[in-house]
C-alpha cells in the first residue's frame, strides 16, 4: 500500500516571504530524494490560480495521489488546497501542509539552520501524508427549528430574522418580559433615539409573529444532542398568573399591598409583589414573586385574586418542564453590570449621591422612578455632576478590557444632564474612545455644549467637609494634561461601570460545551474571521455574551448568527467533522476509561457487545480518549497514531539521508 504512494511536493516562495529566508531550491532538491516523492515543484505563489493549476496538472498527468504543500500555515490555506485535490478528483484529506512561513521564515533570522528546519518540516509532511487515507465526512439531516437564549435586543433581532424565513424559533427569556437592558435605557447614543420607541415595536413583532414561540420567565436547564438535532429542556417558572387568561388590565398590581425594590429600576424605584417589570412589558402578563408575596410568606392576602376579573391568578401553578427539539442554538444572554461597592474609594453604597450608569439611565427615563427628572437621593435637583469613566474596565484589578460603550453613554449622560438641569458636567476619562459611526461627531457636539473633560483617573469620592459646599461630594483626580491634582465639588457622581460576563456564564458554558475567553465572555471560533460561531457546532453567539458591544454591533452579530443558522437550515444537511475518533471493536477491552473523559459525552458503552462506541456527530476529534486508551483501540482520523509517529520520524530523520 505504501509503495503505491505517488507524492507531489509543492513548495511556495510566497514572493520573498519564504524564499527570502529559506533556500527554496535546496529544500526542493532535498525533497526529491525522499521516498515516494514523484515530483517536486517550487513556485512564486502556490495559492494563485497558476500555482493551483500546477498541482492539478500533476494529479492529472503524473497520477499524483498524495500532495504536500509547503507554504503558509494550514490555518490559512488548508481548505484552499483541499479544494484543489477535490476538483482534481482526489480525496481532500490526502493533503498535508508544511508551515514554512508563519512558523519558519517569518519566525527566524536567515541562516542555514532555517533552511534545515524547512527541510525537516517538509520531510515530516511527506512521511505523514504517506499514512493519510481518504476520509468522507458524514452528513446528517437537520431539524429546522432554532432556539434563541436571551430576549434582549440581540435575541429579539436573531429571532425576527429567522422567523422572517418562516422557520420556527423558540425565544427563551428568564425575566418576565423580553427587552433586556435596552428596555431600561432612556435614549440611545449617538442619535438620541428614544430607546423604548425603537425597541418596543420590535418586541411586539416578536409577540405577534406566528413563527416565534416566546417563552418568558423560563430557563434552559438541559441540552443534549448535537448540531442539527438538539433536545433542550426548558423550565417554565411558575408565574402564578395564567398567560392564557390574563388580559393585562393591571388591576392586580394596583391592588397588591406589598412592595419591594424594582430590579428594572436598578433598585431606585419600587414594584409590587405581583408585577410586570415595566409598563410596556411583553408579554403584558404579570408574575408573582413568592419571596415578596404575603400569601406565600404568611398564608393570607390574595388581594390580586379577589380583584382579577378574568380569574387569571393561580396560586397552585407549578414549575413546568418542556422538551424542545431544535437544530441550532443562538446564545444571546447579554451581560451583567459591575457592582462598584467593592471599590470603596468611589463611595458607592456609602454616599447616596453616587450612582451607577444603569441607575442614571433609570433617573433619566420618563418611565423611571423620578418620571425622567434627574433628582438626588433627597429629592433636590443637582446642579453639577461628575462622570467617572472606566470603573472596573481597563483596570487590572477588575477587568483588563475596555467595555466599549461607556465613553459614548457618558457623552449621552452629559448631554441629557445639560438638557434637563443646565448644570455643570465633568467627565473624568482615561481615553475617549468614540469609534463608531457618527460617534466622533457626537463627541464634538457634546464638547460644544460646555462639558468639561478632565483626562485622568479619579482617585476618590468623599463628602465635602466644608460648610460652604453644602451637601456636595468632592471628586479628587489627577488631571494628567495639567499635571496637577484637582478637587471637584459636585452634587452627584455617575460611575461608568464595566460590562461583565453574566454571573452564571459558567453554568451555561458547561451546558452547551462552550469555551470562555480570558475575560470570561463566551469564546468565539475565531476572533477575526468567525466571531459568530463557537467551537460547538450549531451553536452561535450574538451580542454582549461574547464581549461588550453597543446596540448596532449586537444587532449586526445577531443577524449574522441568524444567517448562519438559516444557511444550515437551507442546506438541510450538516457535515460532521472529518477529524473524529472511532473505536476498533476487536481491540477494545471494554474498560470504559475513555467514557468519562470525553468532554462532549460522545462515548457510550454498548452493553450488548461490551465495547465502547463513539457517536461521530458529537465527537470533536480532540483525541483525549485515544491518548488514554490502554489498548490503543481508538483512532482519531487525520490525527492517527501512525500519522503522527510518521511525522515525528520525518522531522527528526533529516541527517540520515
Amino acid at each position: 500500500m505504501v509503495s503505491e504512494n505517488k507524492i507531489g511536493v509543492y513548495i511556495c516562495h510566497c514572493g520573498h516571504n519564504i524564499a527570502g529566508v529559506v533556500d527554496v531550491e535546496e529544500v526542493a532538491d532535498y525533497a526529491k530524494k525522499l521516498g515516494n516523492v514523484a515530483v517536486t515543484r517550487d513556485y512564486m505563489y502556490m495559492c494563485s490560480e497558476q500555482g493551483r493549476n500546477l498541482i492539478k496538472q500533476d494529479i492529472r498527468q503524473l497520477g499524483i495521489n498524495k500532495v504536500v504543500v509547503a507554504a503558509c500555515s494550514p490555518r490559512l490555506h488548508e481548505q484552499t488546497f483541499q479544494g484543489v485535490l477535490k476538483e482534481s478528483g482526489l480525496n481532500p484529506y490526502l493533503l498535508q501542509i508544511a508551515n514554512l512561513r508563519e512558523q519558519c521564515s517569518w519566525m527566524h533570522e536567515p541562516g542555514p539552520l532555517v533552511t534545515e528546519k524547512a527541510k525537516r518540516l517538509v520531510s515530516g509532511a511527506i512521511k505523514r501524508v504517506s499514512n493519510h487515507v481518504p476520509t468522507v465526512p458524514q452528513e446528517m439531516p437537520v431539524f429546522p427549528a432554532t432556539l434563541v437564549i436571551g430576549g434582549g435586543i440581540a435575541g429579539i433581532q436573531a429571532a425576527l430574522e429567522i422567523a422572517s424565513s418562516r422557520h420556527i424559533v423558540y425565544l427563551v427569556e428568564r425575566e418576565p418580559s423580553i427587552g433586556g437592558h435596552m428596555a431600561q435605557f432612556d435614549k440611545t447614543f449617538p442619535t438620541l433615539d428614544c430607546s423604548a420607541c425603537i425597541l418596543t415595536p420590535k418586541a411586539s413583532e416578536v409577540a405577534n409573529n406566528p413563527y416565534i414561540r416566546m417563552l418568558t420567565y423560563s430557563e434552559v436547564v438541559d441540552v443534549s444532542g448535537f448540531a442539527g438535532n438538539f433536545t433542550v429542556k426548558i423550565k417554565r417558572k411558575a408565574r402564578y398568573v395564567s398567560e392564557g387568561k390574563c388580559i393585562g388590565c393591571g388591576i392586580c398590581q394596583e391592588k397588591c399591598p406589598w412592595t419591594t425594590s424594582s430590579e428594572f429600576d436598578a433598585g431606585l424605584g419600587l414594584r409590587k409583589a405581583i408585577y410586570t417589570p415595566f409598563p410596556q412589558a411583553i408579554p403584558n402578563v404579570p408574575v408573582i414573586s413568592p419571596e415578596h408575596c404575603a400569601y406565600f410568606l404568611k398564608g393570607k392576602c390574595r388581594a390580586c385574586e379577589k380583584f382579577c376579573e378574568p380569574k387569571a391568578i393561580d396560586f397552585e401553578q407549578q414549575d413546568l418542564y418542556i422538551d424542545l427539539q431544535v437544530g441550532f442554538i443562538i446564545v444571546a444572554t447579554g451581560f451583567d453590570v459591575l457592582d462598584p461597592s467593592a471599590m470603596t474609594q468611589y463611595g458607592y453604597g456609602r454616599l447616596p449621591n453616587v450612582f451607577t450608569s444603569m441607575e442614571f439611565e433609570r433617573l433619566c427615563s420618563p418611565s423611571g422612578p423620578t418620571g425622567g427628572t434627574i433628582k438626588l437621593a433627597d429629592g433636590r435637583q443637582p446642579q453639577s455632576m461628575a462622570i467617572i469613566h472606566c470603573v472596573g474596565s481597563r483596570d487590572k484589578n477588575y477587568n483588563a478590557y475596555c467595555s466599549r460603550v461607556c465613553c459614548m453613554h457618558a457623552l449621552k449622560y452629559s448631554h441629557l444632564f445639560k438638557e434637563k438641569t443646565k448644570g455643570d458636567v465633568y467627565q473624568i476619562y482615561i481615553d475617549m474612545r468614540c469609534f463608531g459611526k457618527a460617534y466622533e461627531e457626537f463627541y464634538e457636539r457634546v464638547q460644544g455644549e460646555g462639558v468639561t473633560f478632565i483626562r485622568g483617573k479619579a482617585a476618590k469620592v468623599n463628602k465635602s467637609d466644608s460648610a460652604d459646599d453644602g451637601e456636595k461630594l468632592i471628586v479628587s483626580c489627577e488631571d494628567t494634561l495639567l499635571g496637577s491634582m484637582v478637587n471637584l465639588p459636585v452634587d452627584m457622581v455617575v460611575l461608568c461601570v464595566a460590562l461583565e460576563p453574566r454571573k452564571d456564564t459558567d453554568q451555561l458554558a458547561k451546558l452547551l460545551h462552550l469555551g470562555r475567553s480570558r475575560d470570561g465572555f463566551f469564546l468565539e471560533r475565531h476572533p477575526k474571521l468567525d466571531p459568530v460561531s463557537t467551537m460547538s457546532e450549531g451553536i452561535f453567539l450574538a451580542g454582549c455574551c461574547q464581549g461588550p458591544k453597543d446596540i448596532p454591533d449586537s444587532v449586526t452579530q445577531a443577524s449574522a448568527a441568524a444567517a448562519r443558522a438559516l444557511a444550515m437550515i437551507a442546506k438541510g444537511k450538516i457535515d460532521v467533522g472529518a477529524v473524529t475518533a472511532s473505536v476498533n471493536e476487536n481491540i477494545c477491552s471494554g474498560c470504559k476509561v475513555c467514557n468519562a473523559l470525553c468532554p462532549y459525552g460522545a462515548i457510550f458503552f454498548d452493553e450488548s457487545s461490551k465495547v465502547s462506541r463513539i457517536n461521530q456527530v458529537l465527537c470533536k476529534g480532540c483525541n483525549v480518549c485515544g491518548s488514554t486508551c490502554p489498548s490503543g483501540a481508538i483512532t482519531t482520523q487525520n490525527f492517527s497514531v501512525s500519522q503522527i509517529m510518521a511525522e515525528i520520524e520525518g522531522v527528526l530523520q533529516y541527517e540520515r539521508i
Partner: protein
Amino acid sequence: MSEFEPKIVAFLCNWCSYAGADLAGTSRMKCSPNVVSIRLMCSGGLEPAFILKAFKEGADGVLVCGCNLGDCHYVDGNYKTLRRMALLKKMLAQMGIEDERIRLQWVCASCGDDYVEAVDKMTAEIRKLGPLQLRAQLKN
C-alpha cells in the same frame, strides 16, 4: 565538529498554541530555529508514546504546548495534559532523561511572545545540557 545544535520537537494544540505560534510568526517575533512543531488537535490528545518516540528518533528535547488552563477548546483537555505530564516526567527521570528536556508551556492564541520565549529558553537550556545521552548509552 561544529557546535551542538539541539533538536527539539514541539507538540502544539490546534486552537491556542498552534495559533499562538503562527501569531509569533505573523508578528515577526524571532526565535531560534531549533524547534520544529507538530500540530495536534488538543494537548490532551498527546499520547505519551509520541514523546518517547521523539526522544527515540533523535530529539534532544520535547516542548508541549496547550491552551491556558480554563481556555481549552475541548473544555478541559489541558488539565488532562497537566496530570499526564507530571506522571510522564517521573518516568522519564527514571530513564535518565533530565527534567529540562521536557517542558509544558501554555500558549494562548494571542500569546506569540510566550511561545517565542519558551522556544528560546528551552533551546538555551538544552544547548547547555548537550545531546541526549540515553540513545548513545543504549547503543553501547
